[in-house]
């Protein structure tokens, strides 16, 4: 005896009309959270690792200083000399009083250049700094 297979009478279908809405929602989320990178980093650097790490909550306050493996310093969009750091940072600080300077310094650097930059920052009275580091697991 053969059994007739029972089939559901209604045709199965996933409603796709709301798909576009869902996708748009996702799209909006990513559009809002995206911060397109404004600066090109011209120096090569590898950050040190640390355990006791804090996050910088307010990204608007952050300004970066890069120091590469070869000891070149980059502020903003271009490489700068050490003597010019103070001037640039002073201008930045007057525009944004509670600025945080994030120091992205290559881990192979000497402390000499770090102290030099710190002295320049102190002269420009940018006192809040952050040694950028990766999380050590």
């Amino acid at each position: 005896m053969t059994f007739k297979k029972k089939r559901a009478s209604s045709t199965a279908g996933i409603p796709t009309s709301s798909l576009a809405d869902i996708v748009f929602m996702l799209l909006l989320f990513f559009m809002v959270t995206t911060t397109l990178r404004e600066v090109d980093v011209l120096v090569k650097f590898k950050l040190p690792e640390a355990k006791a790490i804090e996050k910088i909550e307010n990204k608007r306050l952050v300004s970066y200083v890069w120091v590469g493996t070869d000891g070149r310093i980059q502020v903003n969009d271009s490489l700068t000399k050490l003597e010019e750091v103070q001037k640039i940072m002073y201008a930045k600080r007057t525009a944004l009083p509670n600025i945080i300077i994030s120091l992205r310094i290559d881990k192979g650097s000497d402390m000499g250049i770090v102290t030099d930059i710190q002295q320049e920052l102190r002269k420009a009275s940018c006192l809040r700094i952050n040694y950028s580091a990766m999380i050590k697991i």
Partner: protein
Amino acid sequence: MVQIKKKKRPDPEIPTSSMADISFLLLLFFLVSTVIDVDTGIGMTLPEYIPADQQTTVPISKERLAALLINENGDVLLNNEVIAIPQISKTLKPRIESKIELPANKKLIISVKTDRKTNYNLYIQALDQVKLAYFEVREEYALRRYGKRTIDLNEKSEELKDIREKIPIIISIAEPEKIKS
């Protein structure tokens, strides 16, 4: 007269079936281009710049001071004793803990001093250890006193204010020396 029959046009419609595809493409673009890079690092506050001729020295008792010296060979000296970097936090913890209940002008000051030739990575490792010691003390104090972990406390809460007051992180970056001996 023959009436010209109007041709019946189909209802105008925008095809929406491809909309999802288009928005998927856009979505993909933003997904790929998004860099969610969180800035992490060790926060510090530099001392104010005072020209050398205006500097005054304030005597600090030996009891308050923990001097951390890192030389160019990577040797670390804590209170004139050679120490390995991973040991720093363990050594500092009891000293920080003993000063929890003391008034603000008696808290521990950690002075970090490096050579010009010291490796930056070593400096960060040492600083990390110091911070770690403080964080652990804070964590234990929060658990003991409030039964909560520090990350569970509200940023503006009284508890966190109290913890920060009781266990302030005072790290002094020593003035660099002009002449290298």
